[in-house]
């Protein structure tokens, strides 16, 4: 809808409005996309005056939508579904991280006496509160013929807790992501990598979410924002070293960790049928687990018009 000059990525400058639009984005410190877009002037180029607000977790950032402190947030399917179930927010894009490659970055570490999934029966499994991990366990165990009820799930507050607990033998298995962490977990004696998530049916998508108010007020701005994200992602892929420098400077993320994590951390803005399936499968799980109280129509919570303007070739859902 809307504006004359579109469909031309290279003509971005011509879409630049006279007045930059103000935008507050909820982010976490390990995500390179927004920071690169900001520090490399990509947002500016698309007429966006962005302020990045750092939260401890994506879930916290999404929560700040509720209290009207940010306009845009992102996160994994899980907290995103929780958010759209509650308020007037729409998913404007998927981050394209639901690939096998990035799923492979999620590793399952287990004590040495656990050599296959069926060994997990009666064991203590770590989950992080407020994340998709309970769902992942559920799917993984189901696929291996183990009932989730036969295991004990321990809710933890962070991966550092899981590390210590695994090292001390207080838990038997945990999922981990991120190069810095995987390196640490590899060093634990008596525990080993059992599998990774690419061998399960679960792919976690990430999504970008915005308030309906903002989408209605600035449809063109949203499109430009998505264009900027796409350009930033491309820059990140092309310049891993510089990205690592930027992240170290801004958030102190160790450089080697950034580079190794780019496979999972970098985005490929779009929205595919797979993205939709992932969302609806998790929604079903959340409904059955009582995390979402009232069912809702997922399609009504998608607003992909701007995305179709920005990267038409990468929206294959609903076509």
């Amino acid at each position, binding site marked *: 809808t809307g504006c004359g000059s579109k469909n031309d990525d290279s003509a971005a400058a011509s879409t630049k409005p006279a007045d930059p639009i103000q935008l507050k984005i909820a982010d976490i410190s390990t995500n390179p996309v927004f920071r690169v877009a900001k520090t490399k002037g990509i947002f500016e180029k698309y007429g966006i005056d962005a302020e990045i607000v750092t939260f401890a977790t994506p879930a916290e950032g999404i929560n700040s939508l*509720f209290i009207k402190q940010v306009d845009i947030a992102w996160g994994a399917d899980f907290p995103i579904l929780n958010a759209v179930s509650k308020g007037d927010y729409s998913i404007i894009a998927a981050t394209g991280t639901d690939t096998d490659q990035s799923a492979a970055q999620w590793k399952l570490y287990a004590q040495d006496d656990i050599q296959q999934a069926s060994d997990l029966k009666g064991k203590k499994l770590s989950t992080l*509160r*407020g994340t998709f991990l309970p769902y992942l366990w559920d799917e993984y165990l189901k696929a291996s013929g183990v009932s989730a009820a036969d295991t004990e799930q321990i809710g933890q*507050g962070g991966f550092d807790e899981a590390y210590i607990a695994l090292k001390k033998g207080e838990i038997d298995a945990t999922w981990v992501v991120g190069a810095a962490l995987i390196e640490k977990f590899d060093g634990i004696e008596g525990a080993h990598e059992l599998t990774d998530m690419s061998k399960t049916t679960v792919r976690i998508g990430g999504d970008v979410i915005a308030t309906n108010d903002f989408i209605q007020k600035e449809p063109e701005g949203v499109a430009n924002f998505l264009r900027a994200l796409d350009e930033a992602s491309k820059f990140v892929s092309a310049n891993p070293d510089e990205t690592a420098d930027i992240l170290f400077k801004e958030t102190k993320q160790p450089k080697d960790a950034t580079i190794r994590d780019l496979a999972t951390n970098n985005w490929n803005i779009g929205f595919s049928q797979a993205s939709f399936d992932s969302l609806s499968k998790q929604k079903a799980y959340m409904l059955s687990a009582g995390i979402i109280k009232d069912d809702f129509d997922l399609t009504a919570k998608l607003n992909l018009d701007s995305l179709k303007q920005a990267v038409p070739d990468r929206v294959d859902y609903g076509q």
Partner: protein
Amino acid sequence: MKLSTKSSAYKPRAAKWFPIVLLWLLVLAVWQVGAWIYGPEVVPGVAETWRGAKELMEDGSLAKDIGVSFYRVLVGWSLGSLIAIPVGLIIGRVSPIRAIAEPFLNFIRFIPPIAFITLFLVWFGIGEQSKIALILYATLFIVMMNTLTGVLALEEDKVRSARSMGASEWQILLHVVIPATTPYMFTGIRIAMGTSYMAIIGAEMMAANEGVGFLIWNSRLFFRTDWIFVGLISLGLMGFITDRAVGWLGHKLLRRYGVVISSGARR
């Protein structure tokens, strides 16, 4: 501005309770107005909160959470006090140890308990122990510093008279220093009880599946503000009630040592 003249004027019971009831109605009103202004996702109203509480009460999870947190606070706080008192006594009575320990205490007591989460996980594991240890830590320095202050405030005349009546150093510790320091220890213990409720929030940020702190953190993740409010009100009530109970107990059992009921000005 009419100022009080501290007269011990007689007041009927009803007149005493009336302003308190009025206050609570006022607080509820302000709260409800806040809910209307900000909307229930941000500030759940009185009715929403009550519904949330009922929901949590129906499946018994609120009672369980309160029970679990209360147990953790009680154990951590008791253990902390039990450790702090003898240590405080020793630091107070033995000057070379005091010279060594005081600067260290004055440094470490500014490091928030929450900061020790990782370390405590390492030492005490993800079970009850690490949570209790965090509460214990939050209690420890307060009781220790108060005991120390009490020992240093002990009148030399008391020690001298005991000594000239033939009391040994050990007898002096047992029969003079400890009873004379009791009100200070008690103040410390009571202040620490308040701090324990602050620390439980941090303790239950760590691997926890239940407890009021867990309720609050977990509800935050799903933005169940009504449950957050239920958790907060539970904490306030638990704190208030145990503080009063401890004060009352102290007054009953330790009156001879000069412990008085007060509303605990310091925390």
